[in-house]
């Protein structure tokens, strides 16, 4: 892929900048079409996309689609507590009489939000640090950034995330913060490796010679060539972030009741096993579906870019 871009750059002399832009856009459109074709040929990837879209729709439209939207907040109906799954309550009701299905639908919100927010918080700084360290290889910037990265990578991220979350007031935002603090080094390391390889490429040297600014080289020359691995990692990471988020809330360090979250629903419901199994098992299945959806999607994205490379 690096080769491809550098040939574009090679023909600068005879074509106007506008034309280059137009060509780039066209090739990008073409790429997109080709990628989607590759992607959609794998039925599993399509299932992944459809699942994820459905989940996002469910979560955003929760107040409209949940059978009992009120049950996601402070609500009691002891007369209808612990009902097994039946027509009116497909997934039964919990110990306080709240509809489990409605709470799962609302619980999706915090799970998805976790995935999105954590990646949004993590990718920009992680990528930036990786670019800097890779481009300034051999200089103090690299040493500082990469040694700090190594420190954070010296422990599995879940452990430090648990530690940070237990220090802070337990809620969704602090849970996200805790996971984010532990997640950026993975992107730094990924981009660092790519940047080290790219900085010696012909087109980067060319830009250096023509006096392009560091910012230009970092963001216009190197960054565009790291996009597909980053996207691949992101699409695979969403699932892991959601799992870690559910682990945090499982031990009580995430979303606080009465607001529903899948992890806390499982933890609370576990007290009612084995007889009122639906209180814990349906939220557990919901996590499996969410993670499966994102995983299939992520695999699709990875295969798509992998096919592009070869």
């Amino acid at each position: 892929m690096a080769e491809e871009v550098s040939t574009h750059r090679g023909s600068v002399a005879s074509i106007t900048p506008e034309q280059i832009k137009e060509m780039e856009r066209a090739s990008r459109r073409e790429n997109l079409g080709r990628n989607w074709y590759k992607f959609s040929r794998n039925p599993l990837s399509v299932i992944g996309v459809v699942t994820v879209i459905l989940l996002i729709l469910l979560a955003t439209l929760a107040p409209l689609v949940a059978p009992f939207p009120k049950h996601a907040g402070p609500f009691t109906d002891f007369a209808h507590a612990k009902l097994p799954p039946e027509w009116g309550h497909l997934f039964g009701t919990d110990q306080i009489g709240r509809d489990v299905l409605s709470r799962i639908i609302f619980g999706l919100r915090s799970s998805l939000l976790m995935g999105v927010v954590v990646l949004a918080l993590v990718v920009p700084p992680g990528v930036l640090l990786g670019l800097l360290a890779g481009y300034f290889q051999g200089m103090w910037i690299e040493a500082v950034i990469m040694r700090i990265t190594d420190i954070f990578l010296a422990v599995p991220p879940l452990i430090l995330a648990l530690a940070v979350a237990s220090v802070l007031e337990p809620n969704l935002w602090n849970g996200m913060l805790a996971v984010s603090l532990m997640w950026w080094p993975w992107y730094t390391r990924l981009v660092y490796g790519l940047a080290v390889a790219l900085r010696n490429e012909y087109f980067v040297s060319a830009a250096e010679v023509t006096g392009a600014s560091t910012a230009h080289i970092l963001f216009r020359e190197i960054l565009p060539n790291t996009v597909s691995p980053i996207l691949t990692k992101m699409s695979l990471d969403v699932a892991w972030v959601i799992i870690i988020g559910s682990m945090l809330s499982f031990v009580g360090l995430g979303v606080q009741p009465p607001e529903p979250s899948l992890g806390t629903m499982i933890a609370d419901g576990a007290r009612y096993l084995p007889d009122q199994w639906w209180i814990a098992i349906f939220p557990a299945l919901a996590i499996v579906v969410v993670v499966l959806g994102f995983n299939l999607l992520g695999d699709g994205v990875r295969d798509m870019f992998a096919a592009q490379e070869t």
Partner: protein
Amino acid sequence: MSLLNFLVRRIIYSVFVLLGLSIVIFLIARVMPGDPARMAVGARAPQWVVDRLREQMHLNQPLVVQYGYWLSDAVRGDFGLSLITQRPVTTDIKEFLPASLELVFFSGLLSAVGGIGLGIVSARYKDTWIDNVVRVFSYFGIVTPSFVFAILFILLFGFTLNWLPIIGRVHEQTAVPPLVTGAITVDALLAGQFGTFFDALRHLLLPAISLAMGSIAQEARITRSSMADNLSKDYIASARALGIPERVVMGRFLLKPSLIPTVSILGLDIASTLSVAFLVELIFNWPGLARYGMNAMLHKDLNAISAVILVLGAAFVTVNIIVDIIVAQLDPRIRLSATRSA
């Protein structure tokens, strides 16, 4: 870089990484709101008892000084007193670490054997129903969080079917072997108590499988795909054409190169099992370091938190070094490097 050279450099580097880690942990532990001394002695103890403990823990000194005390004690193997158990943290770690290592080792063994085994089977019978079953299993194994497996297994095998024990490391009437390593299975074998060994194994099974499910699935998938990739390579076809027996082709020419990615992922998976164990040990009441660490976090036991993370960090770093060496041995193309990220 020679292996010895690599080892020395890598270990020295790791020490500095762990030192950095200790600063990070120390900061996390000390910005905790609430008075750890008060938490240690309980809500009803008089203030002077709290003050005495604060003094003892140097909590009234500036952070830098506290870190100095902490570090100088830590290098001598003294991590202070645990607030929950009220014993030296080092004693606690010595007591709880073997149980965790036993669990992680056993789950690693299951991942390796189960994952690679399933992967081989899947590749061997590629595109048959066997392959499909393994692939579906892999998908669910990967996407289901370990704590969900733990709960399901307790419910299914422990409660409903009542096949396997769900509490403790051995049955209460089983004779516990004399303490040597702290890992009951090993101690039982050393003492020649085979009954105890099998009993301990039965108790290990459910927590270990819950921990291993994810990486069994992962390993199966990777082994399958890398074997499938290599299967289509020319050298396999030529080996077959030369009339080399199929078993030899599969074993020597196919399996070894195909295992390289599996081994490197397996290493990482085993290392991260250390963290997933936090929830699984909690659910199974497994008296290991992870449960101790989890309780420490939930009870803001800062000395214990710092020590547990540092110990796990050391274990994680060590496993990573070992994995790098093994992968380098398997694949001569890979060069060893002292820093992780280079």
